[in-house]
């Protein structure tokens, strides 16, 4: 079914540019390819998992505009081939969009990715796109979402309306992959609350406005939950696995940023209702930037955020009452060298997760990125317990064209 859906959309992509007027401008290709290496210093929990993960990825981008720039088409496929985990060898259509722009409106139809929110440690309000969980564990890689989106801009702010006719299941590492739960998630046996399954028609609306120093967004989503709950089960080979279950949900979200010189004050809050119960969660904090530290060109940003979920330890996320402290270094040099180190501390259980990310341009078209995640002192009750031996270093070299 999924394959048929993609074949349909891919064939549509071939039709769309020619459907435009004849005076269409020239299309352009860009994109990047990358080689990624992950090293896991600790031996895995299961002997089927490895210590070294090598993968390559490719993401070309096609863009064409016509009608004096008022109409455009974008196509962004993505593919990764992975040496360790067959689930991580996967492909996706990140974008396949036809966009039409008027005086104060935009109509965007097709597969798209978008982003809502302001905080750094987690992204509560950002609900439209499903997480491509197998790509990275920070939840920032997303799958393309089919939609019709009308955006209207008035003095009172911008109003966005979304119809979401197809649901994307979250991706998870397979049996041989690291950074997975024990037992692993069997994505072939997903279950839904809705009888329409992945074809339930979801909708969402959002208002946002910038008022001086304030940027405010208010959103509502109604449809299939992007985060599944799990039930224990067996796969066809008789192994015990986790089966994802996607309930229907209603979620209202608020995102707010107040920008006062070097201070950025941030808040994201959600209230969700699914399967007869309601819960709330929030992330709030600040980022303060020291400009030109020690007479250099570098900026150092200090980030502190508090993460709260009123379900407490029952929350399916590891962030129920945690504090995130981060340090961001931007060298502002010719190679755009950046570095971010952060730690999330569980206030009640005193365990922590440390993460670091860095990147710099190499020559004009290459970029070198490093990443590391370290799980320290994770107790058996925590959601991250199954990752306790999966601390890793990652190096990626990407070529842009």
């Amino acid at each position: 079914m999924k394959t048929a859906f993609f074949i349909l959309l891919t064939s549509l992509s071939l039709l769309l540019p020619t459907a435009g007027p004849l005076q269409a401008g020239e299309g352009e290709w860009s994109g990047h390819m990358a080689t990624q290496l992950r090293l896991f210093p600790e031996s895995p929990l299961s002997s089927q998992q490895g210590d070294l993960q090598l993968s390559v990825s490719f993401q070309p981008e096609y863009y064409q505009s016509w009608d004096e720039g008022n109409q455009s088409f974008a196509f962004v496929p993505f593919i990764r081939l992975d040496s360790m985990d067959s689930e991580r060898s996967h492909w996706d259509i990140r974008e396949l969009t036809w966009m039409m722009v008027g005086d104060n409106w935009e109509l965007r139809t097709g597969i798209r990715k978008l982003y809502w929110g302001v905080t750094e440690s987690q992204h509560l309000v950002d609900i439209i796109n499903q997480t491509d969980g197998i790509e990275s564990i920070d939840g920032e890689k997303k799958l393309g979402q089919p939609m019709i989106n009308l955006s209207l801009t008035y003095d009172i702010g911008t109003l966005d309306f979304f119809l979401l006719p197809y649901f994307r299941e979250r991706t998870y590492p397979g049996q041989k992959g690291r950074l997975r739960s024990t037992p692993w998630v069997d994505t072939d046996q997903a279950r839904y609350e809705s009888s329409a399954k992945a074809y339930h028609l979801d909708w969402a609306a959002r208002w946002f406005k910038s008022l001086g120093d304030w940027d405010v967004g208010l959103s509502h989503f109604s449809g299939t939950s992007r985060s599944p709950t799990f039930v224990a089960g067996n796969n066809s080979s008789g192994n015990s696995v986790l089966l994802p279950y996607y309930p229907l949900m209603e979620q209202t979200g608020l995102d707010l940023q107040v920008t006062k010189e070097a201070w950025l004050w941030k808040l994201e809050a959600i209230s969700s209702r699914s399967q007869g119960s309601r819960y709330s969660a929030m992330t709030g904090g600040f980022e303060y930037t020291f400009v030109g530290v020690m007479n250099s060109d570098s900026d150092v940003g200090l980030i502190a955020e508090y993460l709260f979920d009123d379900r407490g330890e029952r929350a399916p996320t590891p962030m129920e009452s945690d504090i995130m402290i981060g340090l961001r270094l931007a060298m502002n040099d010719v190679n755009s060298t950046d570095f971010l180190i952060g730690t999330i501390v569980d206030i009640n259980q005193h365990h922590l997760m440390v993460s670091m990310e860095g990147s710099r341009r190499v020559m004009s078209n290459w970029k070198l990125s490093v990443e590391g995640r370290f799980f320290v002192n994770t107790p058996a009750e925590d959601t991250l317990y199954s990752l306790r031996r999966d601390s890793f270093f990652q190096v990626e070299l990407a070529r842009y064209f």
Partner: protein
Amino acid sequence: MTRLKQIILTLPLLLLPLTAMAQTPEEKGLAIAREVDQRDNGFQDSTAKMTMTLKNRAGQESFRYIRFKTLEVEGDGDKSLSIFDKPRDIKGTAMLTFSHATKPDDQWMYLPALKRVKRISSRNKSGPFMGSEFAFEDLGSQEVEKYHYKWLRDEPCNGLDCFVVERRPAYEHSGYTRQEVWIDKEAYRVQKAVYYDRKNSLLKSQTFSGYKQYLNKFWRTTTMEMVNHQTGKSTQLLWEDYQFRVGLDSNDFNRNSLKRAR
């Protein structure tokens, strides 16, 4: 023409040297800055392309391609949209700025990989723009109220008669104590600028060349060169394809247009 009329007409001319003498160097500096500003009023909107060449002390070069859209705003600083085409890894990144005379600018950045619009702090005025020798404050909208002025002297520059005006930033967090700016008397164009750092030591000098006039009024430079005397590094900006009054309005300068800029 009657004799009386002649007297009345010549009277103001006779008074001119007197008023000029009564004008303090500060007043004269401000008057020159107002004239520069007034001569650039009414362009409405413009677009341009820029190639930035960064050169380090060893002569190694790197390049940035940026497109600019600007909207003139009555009674406030301009709105601008900058779109980055190169280097390739930041292609599609765009920045939206609502500049203000003395209060901090409003600034948003679009990061295409995450599709994220970030409201960013405009506190960093003195930091380098894209790793170049230009600071953010060197490229921002130049409102009269941004500086305190003082006329220093007249002297020739680029083969023209020029005013030399000192300007001291009136806004907070500048990287400079003062700047000296050479402005030609013929068309009130900036021909040269010298920047002094926070310790009042010579930091950078900037030259402007290849001025062209658009719509019979607005002068724009083709080449700007910034040399950092303390590091030996330099940056050249090459401006191309200037277009005026292309019909941009405030709908071209909001978060939606920032996201679709490419």
